[in-house]
């Protein structure tokens, strides 16, 4: 009974949040209606909960209970704090695009340094000024996930990044999401459209501004990658220790495309990164890797669904988790091989390093193979640091702490090494080292 009433309360609160926010949500023409429908979809399912198979380890209904009111438009003071945080996580040579509390902040962004090969608009601008059917499609969901439906209903802003056919963007584009608020929620939705033969690297960073606390972030990134195009998408998420971050990536790629995906979650009370990747054209190669770094009582969930829809695609997934104190890391990796998707070559490994007796790792690799003549494999392990390795390093003069740090770095180095750009690899390594230093 208690649960039922908790659900009813949550929904009432969420309904109020949507009603209260409606006037501030951008979108002309059919958009308001699409939002209302998305909200209905969300309302029917409610906050993702343990009864949903995909969310069984991350029961948001139990963990966060309610959706907080929409964050106000950031004021000048918030922008000053956001600027400082955005600077801290800036990737070397990247073109920075900053979203503060869910609103694009051009004054903190490097729009002037954008290369001619790429077009960047804010979602708000697109939704308000263009009401063609194509743009309305931006807000439609291709998955039934209720967190993504909520995102479609509530998204206040985001970035629409287009790289036309044959164009290569040389410098990485970095979307920096900064949260400045207290007990508010933000919703951002971004689009990456890469035409045939286009190349781009997009980094997404999540970071709290000084003083931000208890906030909820719900972000969705939707990427369409053309034939023979290549996309690197590197995500590094940090959040206040009492904040929630739900990020979804929905990615589809055409023929002979190349996807190089990486996600690292470093902090936040409750974090969920979910990637839905569809390999829709033959000969496409996917490398999807990630790291969860968890300590204290924090909870980090990475869930990746790879859909091999056509034959002759390759996917490789390497996932590592480092868990200290009473932290909990979840990794779910589902590989679907559709009927007829023969010559699929898919492999997934997940390993967890437990640094304390209370640390918890849940791994759920799943293969759903509906085609013949495929190669699919998965492996999952978890354990403590190897005593023999520790002794070896200490016997060579490293302190116990330094030996541990070196081994942890080596452990998470494996998926990080898969990032093709050396510059971005160094960026991710530096962020991971920052996490390691903070706890030592």
């Amino acid at each position, binding site marked *: 009974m208690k649960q039922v009433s908790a659900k009813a309360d949550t929904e009432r609160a969420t309904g109020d949040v949507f009603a209260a926010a409606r006037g501030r949500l951008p979108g002309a023409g059919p958009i308001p209606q699409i939002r209302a429908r998305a909200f209905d979809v969300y309302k029917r399912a409610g906050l993702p909960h343990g009864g949903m198979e995909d969310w069984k380890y991350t029961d948001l209904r139990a963990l966060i209970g309610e959706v907080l009111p929409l964050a106000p438009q950031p004021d000048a003071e918030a922008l000053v704090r956001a600027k400082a945080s955005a600077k801290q996580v800036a990737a070397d040579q990247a073109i920075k695009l900053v979203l503060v509390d869910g609103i694009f902040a051009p004054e903190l962004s490097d729009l002037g340094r954008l290369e001619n090969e790429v077009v960047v608009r804010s979602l708000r601008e697109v939704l308000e000024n263009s009401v063609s059917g194509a743009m309305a499609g931006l807000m439609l969901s291709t998955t039934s996930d209720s967190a993504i439906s909520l995102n479609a209903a509530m998204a206040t802003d985001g970035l629409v990044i287009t790289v036309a056919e044959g164009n290569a963007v040389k410098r990485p584009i970095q979307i920096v999401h900064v949260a400045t608020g207290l007990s508010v929620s933000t919703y951002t939705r971004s689009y990456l459209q890469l035409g045939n033969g286009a190349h781009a690297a997009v980094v997404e960073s999540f970071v709290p501004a000084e003083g931000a606390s208890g906030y909820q972030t719900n972000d969705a990134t939707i990427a369409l990658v053309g034939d023979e195009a290549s996309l690197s998408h590197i995500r590094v998420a940090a959040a206040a220790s009492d904040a929630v971050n739900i990020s979804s990536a929905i990615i589809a790629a055409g023929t002979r495309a190349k996807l190089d995906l990486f996600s690292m979650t470093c902090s936040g009370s409750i974090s969920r990164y979910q990637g839905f990747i569809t390999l829709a054209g033959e000969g496409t190669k996917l490398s999807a890797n990630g790291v969860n770094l968890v300590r204290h009582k924090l909870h980090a969930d990475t869930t990746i669904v790879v859909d091999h829809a056509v034959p002759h695609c390759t996917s490789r997934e390497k996932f590592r988790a480092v868990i200290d104190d009473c932290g909990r890391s979840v990794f779910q990796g589902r590989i679907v091989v559709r009927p007829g998707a023969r010559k699929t070559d898919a492999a997934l490994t997940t390993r967890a390093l437990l640094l304390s007796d209370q640390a918890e790792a849940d791994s759920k690799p799943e293969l759903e193979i509906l085609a013949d003549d495929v190669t699919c494999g998965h492996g999952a392990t978890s354990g403590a640091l190897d*005593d023999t390795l520790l002794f070896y390093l*200490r*016997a*060579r003069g*490293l*302190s116990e702490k330094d030996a541990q740090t070196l081994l942890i*770095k*080596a452990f998470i180095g*494996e998926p990080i090494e898969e990032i093709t750009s050396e510059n971005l690899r160094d960026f991710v390594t530096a962020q991971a080292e920052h996490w390691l230093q903070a706890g030592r």
Partner: protein
Amino acid sequence: MALLEIRELHVGVENREIIRGLHLNVNAGEVHAIMGPNGSGKSTLSHVIAGKPGYEITGGQVLFRGENLLRMEPTERAAKGVFLAFQYPVDIPGVTTMNFLRAAVNAQRKAREQQEFSTPEFLKRVREVAGSLNIPQHMIKRGLNVGFSGGEKKRNEILQMALFEPSLCILDEIDSGLDIDALRIVSSGINALRSPERAMIMITHYRRLLDHIVPDIVHVMSKGRVVKSGGKELALELEACGYAQFEDAA
């Protein structure tokens, strides 16, 4: 004062006594060989000197330059100049040999209040020593011991020994897994490090190693004790008659 002095040492693992009243004195400049059958406690002795956790010291003393070695962390022992070349060197993917070497050498130098090496200085030093051990540069840039053959791992141990400049080198079956060419390279690397300030303890089953690295003193270990000590000719005697003659002595 002996560099290493072991008095009446007793060591157990999981309630089983492995070392049972062992005595050993090693002076600077000496090369000792410890021979003995499997299970006589040779490797346990090397681990206890280096400080490997998991052993229970139930009696006796191990003094290094007069200091109680048993009270020190492995890190501190390394900084004081104790080096153990592992029988089975570990491999660590994700840590390049070069980065590991630099971290370890500088940690030791820092602990000894010596100045850390500058990067070019260190690279030069590594290149020199690696060259003398036939260790190609590309191996140093790879993950520590990852994909190395048994012989390459052992050469890598000697590379570290040369860089760390320890006062006491314990070589735990450095000859195991080596073919004759690799044995020659490893032995000449070790011989090059013999010096009046440095002592070595070689643990081995086989006399073959002692043809390449001629010891000053040979000890026979059986059932957790040194049961006989002598000159290098003792190794020949062992080869002719086997260890059985010493079983009773223990």
